[in-house]
């Protein structure tokens, strides 16, 4: 799922933003996406598996949710003119990301201020039966 998102990100108009293949790890206590504004990072995929049906013979029928978060930041004092369009384009990848069998595809985005930076998180959550 992470690879699919990275691949699709290269296909949308990013303007002055760029995509990094690195994970958004902290470097000396500062996340890479705040250290490097206008660079888009895609986090590692995490999974959560919960039972969908509980049966008397312990059949293994679960619903598994995979989540991948996309992070980037920009100068809050000078918002790039294409920011909203870019966030919309990234959220629009929801139906293009490769995840066969996903019966529920969700995307949420949130913002936060870190100093004079506006950090944006776009999280994709896909659910399937396993």
């Amino acid at each position, binding site marked *: 799922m992470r690879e699919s998102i990275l691949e699709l990100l290269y296909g949308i108009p990013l303007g002055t933003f760029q995509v990094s293949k690195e994970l958004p790890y902290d470097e000396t206590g500062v996340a890479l996406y705040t250290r490097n504004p206008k660079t888009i990072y895609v986090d590692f995929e995490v999974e959560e598996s919960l039972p969908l049906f*509980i*049966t*008397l013979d312990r059949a293994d*029928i679960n619903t598994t949710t995979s989540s991948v978060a996309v992070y980037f930041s920009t100068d809050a004092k000078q918002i790039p003119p294409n920011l909203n369009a870019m966030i919309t384009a990234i959220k629009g990848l929801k139906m293009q990301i490769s995840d066969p069998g996903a*019966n529920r595809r969700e995307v949420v985005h949130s913002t936060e201020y870190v100093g004079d930076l506006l950090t944006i998180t776009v999280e994709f959550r896909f659910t399937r*039966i396993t």
Partner: protein
Amino acid sequence: MAYIYPAPGVSNVETTLTISVASNGSDTGTAIPALQDITVNAANDVFTWTQLDQGSKLQIATTATNSLGMNLVLDGTTFFGTVGSGGATAAELGIFGASTDKTKIAFDLYLGDNDDGTAGKTLSGEGYITGLAPTVSADAPVWVSPITITVDGDYTVA
């Protein structure tokens, strides 16, 4: 005490339901997997009358209507059988075939082990599979269905 204490997934301790074709003595039976719940119904009818010398109604239990009610997650092999309609055994017929063919089946419902370690009880009988209503939804895209075995006659307990 000997509370009935099935442990899902533990062989000989979990609750199991096995069905076979009642008229086929050589049918060794097939276990129904992925049952979500089981309800044993044993509903006696009651005849009620009044007498001029009694201040309350009098009642006597008459015949019982017996049935097993369950919900299951569909398993393709056991639901449709290896042959389907016309099969000679429960495994061949499948649950759906036994229902559409109106085949009388024999069942053994093992209730599960007791908490004191003694073997649990088994309810047996014969009846017909009815009430199938497989359903699926986008939120939970796995086929599930209610299933009823209407019992012909009495339960036996062993």
